[in-house]
Structures are given as structure tokens and as C-alpha cells.
């Protein structure tokens, strides 16, 4: 990145960090939180997606994260801080159980996508089937943890003030970007890029294909399940469709593709874009015709994939690069 861009980035980040102090309204604040929360989750997905592991099952990890903390809190009053650790542990186990054989037996491409789709369906159906505990398709609300006019409870991980959530989610989003950069600069990325080009050739130069892929998959699963925890605690309501349905799993993939999965801010941009699109359609179209906003949304997604397969940021980046090359090397 050129220094000019880097300075601009820091300035924008400073504005973002300071935005609650300047006094942003409740609604823009909510949008910012959602954008960063989904940006974090999308970044976690993109770690795998950019390296050829396209998962249609991240709803599974989202669901594990969200439901673990809420159910443990409601049934055993276990603080979500410990609940999150348990959720992460479960996600890691699931990622290994599914990931190891997939990578060991070279399940790639369509097969991998559909196996992970099955995983998300298993999680969704288990949540629905255990309706005595989970509330089934109606969803579940964490028991209120704020008593006697308290505005924040760390034990219940519930904050009535959005500003607290803003900084919590901001911290995780920045952590996600940092993880992305670490992966991007590591040997693992080079190894994985080689793997996504040709697995056999990569193995022949001494890359442990299964191990390298599994590491990234576990990292991605953990990030997604943390995203699920944050989502449940912020929204104070989860239902199996919104966290583990095929819709949300596809939406994660769409968001990342729309933003571009080969640049650090691509997934975040995709989250902002999808959110802006949804909100704009909701405001413009309104609720007069049920489903019209989704109709336009679906059509735009098709359009994007056909005409902008590299995503918005990716396409813009390519355009800039071409222009620069042309300027420096006018042949």
C-alpha cells in the first residue's frame, strides 16, 4: 500500500474510534456495530475462502457460538465469558472432525462446499430438534442480566449502552484484520496458495497439506464462533434460521465475494455493502410489498457475480493498478 493510502487509513480509523464521542445517533451506531461485527465474521470466512476452501457451512460455527453461550447462561447461569471459551472449544472440535477427513482425502471444490453445507444443516436441525432446550424455530433470548437499574454487567456480558458494544466489536474487528495480516505474511499463506493451485505438486515439495489447511480452518471456525457469541449477546435474540440457515451461510459467501476476498478490507467492505444495500432497500421499498427488497437483493447478487467476479474492491484495485502501470510504463 502506498504511504498516502496508509495515512488516509489511520485518519479514517481515528474518526471511527472517536465517532461515539462526537455523538452519533443510535441508528448509525447500530449500523456501524453490525458492519464491524459482520466484517469480522466475513474476514474469518475469507481466510479460508481466498485459499480455495469455500465453505457453505459457516452458519454451523455461528450457531455453535451463539447457542452455546445463551443456553449455558440460561440453564446454568454460566457467564458468557466462560461460555465463549466452551463455544470456541466445541467449534475447534467440530472443525477438526469435519476438516481433517476433508483435507486428508482431498475433498475440494463442489464436494467441500456441499459437505460443509451438510454440516450447517446438521447444526440447524439439531437446534430445531432440541426445542425443549433451545426453543426450536422460535429462537431464544438470553435471560436478562441487568438488575436494579444497572447498565452494564460483565458477568452476563450485557450492556444497555451501545457505546460499550461499539468498542467491544471494534476491538474484535481490528483483531480480525490483524489475524488476516499475520496469515497474509506467514509461510502458511504461501503454502496454502501453492496448495490451492495444485495439491499434489505442493505436497511434493514438502508442504504438509492436511496440517496447513486444518490450521486455517480452525482459525476461521474460532473467529466465526466468536462472531456468533457477539451477535447473540448484542442482539439479545437468536433463532436457528438467522444464525445457521442456508441463507446466512450463503450471505457470508456473497458478502465476501462482493467486497473482494483477496484484499484485507475486502470482506469488511462486503459487509458494509450488503448492510447498506439491505437498509437502502428497506427504506426505499419499505414493507409495503413483502419480499420485494429481497427480490432486488437477489438480482443484484447475480449481477455482481456475473460482471464483477473479483468483487468491488478487487475490481477497483485492478483498475488502479492498470492505470498506474500504464503511467509508469507507457508502451
Amino acid at each position, binding site marked *: 500500500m502506498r504511504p498516502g493510502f496508509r495515512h488516509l487509513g489511520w485518519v479514517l480509523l481515528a474518526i471511527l474510534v472517536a465517532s461515539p464521542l462526537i455523538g452519533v445517533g443510535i441508528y448509525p451506531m447500530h449500523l456501524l456495530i453490525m458492519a464491524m461485527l459482520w466484517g469480522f465474521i466475513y474476514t474469518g470466512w475469507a481466510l479460508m*475462502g481466498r485459499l480455495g476452501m*469455500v465453505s457453505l457451512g459457516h452458519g454451523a460455527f455461528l450457531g455453535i457460538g451463539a447457542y452455546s453461550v445463551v443456553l449455558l447462561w440460561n440453564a446454568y447461569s454460566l457467564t458468557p465469558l466462560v461460555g465463549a471459551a466452551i463455544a470456541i472449544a466445541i467449534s475447534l472440535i467440530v472443525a477438526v472432525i*469435519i476438516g481433517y*477427513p*476433508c483435507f486428508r*482425502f*482431498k*475433498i475440494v*471444490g*463442489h*464436494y467441500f*462446499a*456441499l*459437505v460443509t*453445507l*451438510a*454440516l450447517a*444443516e*446438521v447444526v440447524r*436441525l*439439531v437446534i*430445531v*430438534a432440541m426445542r425443549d432446550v433451545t426453543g426450536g424455530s422460535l429462537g431464544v433470548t438470553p435471560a436478562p442480566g441487568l438488575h436494579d437499574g444497572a447498565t452494564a454487567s460483565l458477568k452476563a456480558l450485557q450492556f444497555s449502552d451501545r457505546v460499550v458494544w461499539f468498542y467491544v466489536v471494534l476491538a474484535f474487528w481490528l483483531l480480525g484484520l490483524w489475524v488476516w495480516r499475520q496469515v497474509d505474511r506467514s509461510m502458511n499463506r504461501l503454502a496454502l496458495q501453492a496448495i490451492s493451485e495444485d495439491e499434489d505438486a505442493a505436497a511434493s515439495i514438502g508442504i504438509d497439506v492436511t496440517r496447513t489447511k486444518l490450521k486455517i480452518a480452525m482459525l476461521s471456525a474460532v473467529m466465526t464462533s466468536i462472531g456468533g457469541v457477539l451477535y447473540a449477546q448484542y442482539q439479545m435474540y437468536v433463532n436457528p434460521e438467522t444464525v445457521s*440457515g*442456508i*441463507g446466512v451461510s*450463503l450471505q457470508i*459467501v*456473497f458478502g465476501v*465475494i462482493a467486497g473482494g476476498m483477496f484484499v484485507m478490507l475486502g470482506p469488511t467492505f462486503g459487509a458494509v455493502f450488503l448492510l447498506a444495500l439491505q437498509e437502502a432497500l428497506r427504506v426505499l421499498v419499505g414493507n409495503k*410489498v*413483502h*419480499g*420485494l*427488497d*429481497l*427480490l432486488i*437483493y*437477489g*438480482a443484484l*447478487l*447475480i449481477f455482481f*457475480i*456475473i460482471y464483477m*467476479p473479483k468483487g468491488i474492491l478487487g475490481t477497483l484495485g485492478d483498475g488502479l493498478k492498470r492505470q498506474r502501470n500504464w503511467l509508469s510504463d507507457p508502451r
Partner: protein
Amino acid sequence: MDIFDIFLLEAVINGLLLGGLLALLALGLNLIFGVIDVVWICYAELIMVGMYAIFWSHTDFGWPLWLAFALGIGLVALLGMALHWFIVRPVLSAEPINQLLVTGGVLFFLQAAATVAFGVEFRNIGIRLGGIPLGDVNLSIARLIAFAVALLAIVLAYLFLTRTYTGTAIRAISQDREIMPLMGVNPGKVYLVTSAMGGGLAGLAACLLVLQYDIHPAIGLSFGPITFLICVLGGLGNLFGGFVAAFIFAQFISVGGYVLKIEWGYVLAFVFFIAMMFVRPEGLFARRR
């Protein structure tokens, strides 16, 4: 529980009948994948469109049922061709994931279109065929018809693929898509015919499903995932494998759903699927590469 449980027998028989229907669903999807190498994630949504077309023409326009069925099959076949021509064809040379996702966009689109046009209410065509008592087992006529028609369609599709010139061309393309154009086969035309055939099979499935289930915009989600998994379990693109896998899955859903609860039947089927991926990662009857 007795060793010979009459309800268990009924569950097994219902599973067998369901298997025929699932085999029909899997056939269409497998055909598309085997020939065009693209997974139509929105396959079950095409069925949903067919069901609405049948419902709409039969109840609102008072068309006789056979005409409504013909409309359903024809419409979805056309829809399949349109899907291929306008959506899949532009991304044929793109990344495989983009091909998968673009049909995922169609899934959202069709679901939303159905919601806009018909609302989220459950609709029913209002035909109840009853059942035949056979000893203590009660057999649903709608399921028997579905089973028989599905098997007949599968046999016809098999004969078409093996006994006609176009069918042979379709199979040839699925075996080697680089060489066949050199042999004078126009792949674009074959793709279009295959898409029409896949759509037609989805339309036929719509005719059979409309007799058994209520119609609503999200009905595709109850058949879509299971259809993909059947195809993967049988080996994507392998028609015979998909056929066998459909019956295995149906038994899990039916018997598992009877012994436990209905959702647990599905969970068992999916867990079995994931377990089988470890044993036979390329599907039960993988095409050898």
C-alpha cells in the same frame, strides 16, 4: 417393542416410497452436474415455481389437473433453459465457486419472487387422495403414485440417455467436454437440452410434491439440501449412485423419524452422510478418474 413392529414396517415402506421421489429429485440435479459441471443450488426453488404454477392454474383458473401438470412441467423446463442461457452460460468459464454462487443468487431471487407474488401463506391444492389399507399398514395413494411415476420417469430418462442420438451426445459430453466438440457435437446445444431436461424433471417432481405437501415460498429449503447431499453421497454426476443414495437417505429420514423425532431422522441422515464422506470421500459409487 415387538420384533415385528407394524408401525416400523409402515415407516420402512414410506421410506421406500419417499426414496423413489428423492431419486427423481437427485436425477435432475445429477444430470445437470454431470453434463454441465455446475451445481444448481436453486434446483429445489425451480420445483417450488412449478408447484405454484400448478396451484395457480388449477385453483385460480380452474384448469383441469392434467393441463396444470403439463403447464408445470413445461414452464419449469423453460425456466431451466432460461437459467442456463442467462445465468449459467456467462459464468461457464469462471471460477467454480462463482458458478455455485450465481445459482445461489437465483435461490434468493426465486424465493423472494414467490413471496412477492403469493405471500408467505401456506397453500394447498385441495386434493386428498386418501390411502389403501393393506393389512394393518395404511398406504398413501399420493405416495404410491409419486413412487410409480418417479420410477417410470427415471426409466424413461435412462432409455433416452442410452438409446437416442441426443442422449448419447449428452453422455459423451459428460465424459469428455474437450474432445466432443471436435467430434461435431455442439456443446452449447447439448447444455441447453440438458437444462431443459433437468428443468422438466424438476417440473415433474413439482407435480408429485403438490399432491402431498403444502406450498410456501421456503419449501425449496426443505428439499434442496437433502437433494445435494444425495447427489454427493452417490458421487456427484453419477446417476446410478444418486439413485441408490436416495433410497438410503429416505430410510434414514423415515425410520429415524419414526423411532426418534422427525428432525432427528434428518440429523441422522446428515451425520451418516458426513461419516460416509470419511469412508468414501468420492461418493459411494465414484466415477474413477
